[in-house]
């Protein structure tokens, strides 16, 4: 998907036709779309935060003294996925 990312970025910066020509509108639209998509899917079942289940993660948590949690990206029945900053 990285090639797609490059392509859309290039299109956005050269033609301006792929996203709104108004930065504010594009930003708001895409953010609300993302919100709609996310809210349509239920979040991970909280009762699975138990022994054998999900690990409780807080924003700002650090793993291996190296990966700092920025925010949640997604989840499945077998995992949660987090955006992290790698300081190494």
């Amino acid at each position, binding site marked *: *998907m*990285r*090639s*797609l*990312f490059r*392509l*859309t*970025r290039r*299109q*956005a*910066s*050269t033609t*301006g*036709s*792929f*996203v*709104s*020509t108004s*930065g504010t509108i*594009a*930003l708001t*639209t*895409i*953010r609300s*779309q*993302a919100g*709609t*998509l*996310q809210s349509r*899917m239920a979040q991970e079942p909280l009762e*699975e*935060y*138990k*022994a*054998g*289940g*999900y*690990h*409780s993660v807080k924003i700002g948590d650090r*793993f*291996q003294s190296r*990966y700092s*949690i*920025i925010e949640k*990206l*997604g*989840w*499945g*029945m*077998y*995992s*949660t*996925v*987090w*955006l*992290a*900053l*790698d*300081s*190494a």
Partner: protein
Amino acid sequence: MGHVFHRLARAGLCVNSTSGYALFDDRDEFFCSTNSRVALKILVAKYSADLEEAAKLEAIRDCNPHHPGHARVGQLLDYFEHQGPHGTHTCLVLELLGPSVHLLQHATAAHSPFLPMEVVKQISRDMLIAIDYMHTSCRLIHTGKSINIFQ
């Protein structure tokens, strides 16, 4: 426009992480300049002993880095175990991916219900090259719901 279309990110792979995500905010400069954002996938404790996923991801990373499909697959960067109150969790550090097709389509739906042909062609090409790598080099097939790749 360069300042508008800052960042679209999605993380995860297969059935375990299907949520798309888009972010466009002031922190982007910070994130982009470091080039060190990753997706940290934390498995539930009861399935963490099964390292099959990590093993497959390692195979995908190592079996032929010269194949053009190698760069078109989200790669494993690191993995480790984390001890928590709920048990031992396998943590997979993965490349952060771009937006899903599903999210991209939603994000641009106000302008056109269809993605531009150039984008569709690029996605199709990239996917076929990636699948060829998985099949011919890694000898792996995807047995899940194929719709997942678009979510």
